[in-house]
């Protein structure tokens, strides 16, 4: 079902929704004691909604523990979501039986972060790439062989290497193998879960380019999960920012980087080092105080209020809904328009050295 080779120009965004996530919630129980009583929940993903259009790349960014990977896996039903629905090509995956789900999975795949842990070290790379074909009973042995060769070639590996084992390959090559495996069933949608984080700098660009080429050739749709905002800026059409299990802002790549509305997005952008000494010297940097609170016991009200330089009493009481700031820009902040009126990013308090010593939850500067 290779999607007609639609290219991913911005114009393609007008096309239909391939995936819609509605109020997706994923809590993990915490059990303690011999009786394994439930003593609490890790609220990894809490009421997350968004959609992805065919051929688009949606970047999902956030710091570790914000729930971005969990969201990716819950979408693919690798975890059974606690609540909410996931519509893939119009059908709700959360309501599907095992058989239907298996058939749907042919069209959605995942590329994992760790190319060392995600390949079975006892299988040859040929069998690794052929496994999805076997599971779905596609083709006979010879056809599979042919398909494996084709896939290896597509990801830039020599088909003659099919009989080798994963340990014989470098990290970048293993990630190519993982991508070949994800492509085996001709999926239309791929969750890329931090696909380059474990790779060396000079290899990262090779894999990013490969993912982009494949997207153009096969009309793939990506959910690109990453913590590196520079990479997300490079590869995404739209970007969603997560904090403590919630989406705090979602908009086009350009809007997000040019006009961030949520204070957390502003802080994230300002924290990314830029490889240019002159830019770095002139930059105003907003440094957040404290650490990310625990998702077991997230703060009341806005989850970002304990670290937010703009927080007001309202923010500690009431959780801000994700609202439409304009046609293409959603933000979950009570004060976004006030902050914008005050000059947006320029309204950020200037860093004082060591300003991070204040305990989380200090009163906001005026």
């Amino acid at each position, binding site marked *: 079902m290779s999607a007609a080779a639609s290219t991913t120009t911005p114009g393609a965004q007008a096309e239909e929704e391939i995936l819609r996530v509605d109020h997706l919630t994923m809590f993990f129980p915490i059990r303690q004691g011999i009786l394994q009583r439930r003593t609490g929940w890790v609220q990894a993903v809490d009421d997350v909604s968004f959609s992805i259009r065919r051929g688009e790349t949606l970047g999902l960014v956030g710091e570790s523990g914000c729930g971005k990977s969990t969201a990716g896996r819950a979408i693919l039903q690798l975890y059974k979501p606690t609540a909410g629905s996931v519509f893939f090509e119009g059908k709700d995956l959360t309501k599907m039986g095992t058989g239907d789900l298996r058939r749907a999975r042919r069209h959605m795949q995942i590329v994992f972060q760790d190319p060392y842990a995600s390949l079975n070290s006892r299988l040859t790379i040929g069998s690794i790439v052929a496994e999805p074909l076997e599971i779905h009973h596609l083709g006979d042995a010879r056809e599979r062989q042919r398909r494996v060769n084709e896939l290896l070639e597509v990801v830039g590996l020599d088909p003659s290497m099919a009989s080798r084992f994963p340990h014989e390959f470098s990290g*970048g090559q293993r990630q190519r193998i993982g991508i070949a495996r994800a492509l085996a069933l001709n999926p239309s949608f791929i969750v890329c879960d931090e696909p380059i984080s474990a790779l*060396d700098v000079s290899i990262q660009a090779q894999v990013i380019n490969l993912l982009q080429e494949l997207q153009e050739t096969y009309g793939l749709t990506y959910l690109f999960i990453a*913590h590196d905002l520079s990479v997300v800026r490079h590869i995404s059409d739209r970007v969603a920012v997560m904090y403590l299990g919630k989406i705090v802002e979602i908009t086009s790549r350009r809007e997000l*980087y040019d006009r961030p509305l949520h204070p957390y997005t502003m802080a994230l952008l300002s924290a990314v080092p830029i490889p240019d000494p002159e830019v770095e010297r002139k930059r105003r940097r907003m440094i957040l105080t404290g*650490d990310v609170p625990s998702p077991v016991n997230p703060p009341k009200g806005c989850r970002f209020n304990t670290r937010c330089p703009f927080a007001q009493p309202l923010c500690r009481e009431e959780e801000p809904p994700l609202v439409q700031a304009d046609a293409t820009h959603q933000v979950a902040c009570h004060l976004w328009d006030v902050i914008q009126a005050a000059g947006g990013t320029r309204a950020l308090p200037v860093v004082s050295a*060591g300003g991070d010593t204040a305990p989380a939850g200090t009163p906001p500067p005026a």
Partner: protein
Amino acid sequence: MADAGHLLEVRDLRTQFSMRDGVVQAVRGVSFHVDRGEALGLVGESGCGKSVTALSIMGLVPHPGRVVGGEVWYGGRDQLKLSEAERQKIRGNEIAMIFQDPISYLNPVMTIGRQITEPLEIHRGMTHRAARKRAIELMELVGIPAAASRVDSYPHQYSGGMRQRVMIAMALSCDPKLLIADEPTTALDVTIQAQILELLQRLRAELGMALILITHDLGVVAGIVDRVNVMYAGYIVETAPVADTFRDPRHPYSLGLMASIPRLDQARGDRLRPIQGAPPDLIDTSAGCPFQPRCPYAAPVCLEDNPTLELAAPRHWTACWVDVRNAPPHEPGEAPTGQPTAGPSAAARTTSATATGAASPAAAAAPTGQGGSR
């Protein structure tokens, strides 16, 4: 370069690891210096020898590694010639080091306070009470909130960023003149990374300490250091003031690194320009420049001889036969004349790598993937 002004001077340092598959030459003749109060960046990818260089300076190279040559001058003495007891007096005292992964360097069953006071009692002979007071001061200095009440907590009660602060507090406990920070923020989230980098800069300004910052992240280097050493395959291939490293890189590897990373402050271009191929096998000792198989500027001479660092501009040294400003780039692995280089280096690579396997497909496949698949 041997004037007395340098705080630390490393000359022709060589460190090897004897493995079953052969001798891994992790550091292959590295020379550089750090001045008082200066911040030096040591940049490169994993396996380039940047961490081993630091461990060699500290005298902490793990078995089966061994420093096999060179000199490390500090305080008028070659550290490599000192006894272990004499080095112990310098290590952790005058030269301190912090690591990427604080949790593996903290004792899980000892309180944070005890871990900070221990070096003070050993190196400085402080009483328990004085050391504890100093520990709380240090924790405040590195920005640990409510230090007095958290001094008796255990490492697992601290977050990743706070643990790195504890490591820094321990490193600072004896007022070192030089702090070596090995990927101090790599394991941290970006907002926490910003906090730690800010802290390092503030401490440097307040305490006048020199810093060697080891990282693979060019962005981290850009904001903090005065000079940059770029390392590749156990060699320093370029050294320059930080502004020149970024504005006017002269080594093809540095140039390639800059072109291959997306930047937050730049709009999406069509494609990144990756460095092709993969880093070399350090067991391989074939002649020539180690970057040559991946280098788009390689000339015939690069197969024969490994270039040494030469002055390319004021305070700017690079180890390259080619002047990248004038040479036209070509496909790596092809000689500029157009002949494919299946010659001496490729052959040496496959034979020497039979045991390690990993390097031979690495060297062979990735270029074809880039060049030939479509």
